[in-house]
């Protein structure tokens, strides 16, 4: 049998150790498109002879909150639909918001956070959230496990540090105390790949603002100048931001983008979209204290 369906992480790692060149299949929403198109071959000479379908590995389908309640570890096989459900949606609201923009219910029922990382498209909707949260990515292989920062995990367009025989098991994100959200521009309101996207996350206790940008560079990028500018200029006490600060934040975020012209959009439009989305995200995050 050339399709292996492990039920446990041990079985999955063993199957990959025996077949380091195997195709790891999670939700199939990216890989099957390439297989259907003939762009990715399996079962032919020079292509993977074995597919390891990890969608039933129990450990990958679960999530755990650390005892202190400050960090959440999400299994790589958790679907977008599950990320939109409680309590995960309240733990990481930006991830729930980003998940809602992924495809259709059919796609969200199949696609997984680990698959999003494995594909590592700059347009992956979960990735700006993981970047903004400085997520850690947990990997497992025959020789053991390792944990890498999401920033180091993403190497280039659809390129990661995953070694042959290694799989993504989970990601760990901090539960921040503050507003967070995801914004995305595409050609319509549903079923679109991001032309440009952004995730903004605020942490009140550390008075930090993080913003990560999607579809405007080979990988997700942060905008550190915009982040430090915002942290220094928003009114933390009143929870308010003035229009000039929000405008400058947008400009600084756009300056961090390194977009290209391609069949989906132009670099200039993408930069403009980041400017507008970053400004609006900051304004949503700092609407001002409730007068009541």
């Amino acid at each position, binding site marked *: 049998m050339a*399709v292996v369906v492990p039920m446990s992480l041990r079985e999955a790692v063993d199957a990959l150790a025996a077949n380091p060149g195997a195709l790891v299949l999670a939700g*199939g929403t990216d890989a*099957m498109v390439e*297989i*259907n198109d003939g762009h990715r071959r*399996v079962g032919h000479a020079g292509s993977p002879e074995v597919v390891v*379908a990890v969608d039933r590995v129990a450990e990958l389908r679960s999530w755990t909150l650390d005892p202190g309640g400050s960090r959440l570890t999400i299994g790589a096989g958790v679907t977008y639909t599950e990320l939109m459900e409680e309590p995960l949606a309240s733990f990481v609201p930006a991830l729930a918001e980003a998940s809602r923009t992924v*495809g259709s219910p059919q796609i969200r029922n199949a696609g997984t956070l680990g698959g999003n990382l494995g594909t590592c498209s700059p347009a992956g909707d979960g990735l700006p959230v993981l970047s903004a949260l400085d997520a850690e990515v947990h990997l497992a292989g025959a020789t053991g496990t390792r944990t890498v920062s999401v920033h180091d995990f993403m190497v280039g367009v659809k390129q990661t540090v995953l070694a042959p025989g290694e799989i993504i098991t989970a990601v760990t994100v901090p539960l921040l105390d503050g507003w967070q959200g995801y914004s995305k521009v595409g050609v319509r309101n549903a079923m679109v790949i991001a032309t440009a996207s952004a995730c903004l996350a605020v942490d009140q206790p550390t008075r930090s603002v993080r913003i990560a940008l999607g579809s405007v560079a080979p990988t997700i990028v942060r905008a550190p100048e915009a982040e430090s500018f915002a942290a220094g200029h928003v009114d933390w006490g009143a929870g308010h931001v003035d229009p000039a600060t929000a405008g400058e934040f947008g400009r600084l975020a756009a300056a961090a983008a390194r977009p290209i012209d391609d069949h989906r959009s132009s670099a200039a439009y993408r930069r403009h979209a980041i400017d507008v989305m970053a400004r609006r995200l900051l304004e949503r995050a700092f609407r001002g204290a409730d007068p009541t």
Partner: protein
Amino acid sequence: MNEHYVLHVNGRDHEVTDAWLGESLLDVLRERLGLLAAKGACEQGECGSCSVLVDGDLVCSCLVLGAAAVGRAITTVEGLTERGTLTDVQRAYLEAGAVQCGFCTPGLIMATHDLLDRVPEPTEMEIREELAGNVCRCTGYGRIIDAVQQVAVARRTGAGPA
């Protein structure tokens, strides 16, 4: 390389003997098992015409690897009701004029059952968002939305299948 496995479709086991390694569940259903309700159009999860339930989850069967669906319960339109009878959703689609060429209909029937099982009384906006993954090139969607709303009303008022 030919694959040999058993799929559990619409309540019974089906032997698959001549699929290739990378063959999608959609192609296995249609080409190997002769179950023609699920339709293939985009083969990339954009159109929804191949929608089926796998272990109760609505998915695009074109994006499911057939051999990886072994041991799962697969439901297609053929398995929704006895042959020759219609579900309340199917009847509502006919009565509302929500079927024109019919190519997208099996996928929409699956998606509508799934939606109404989760959200018994969806708003029009919810219907539009939930059915966003099912593309129809004939109707303009107005009558599809009418059909979904008719079923919701009939179920609430206990009118049963119209």
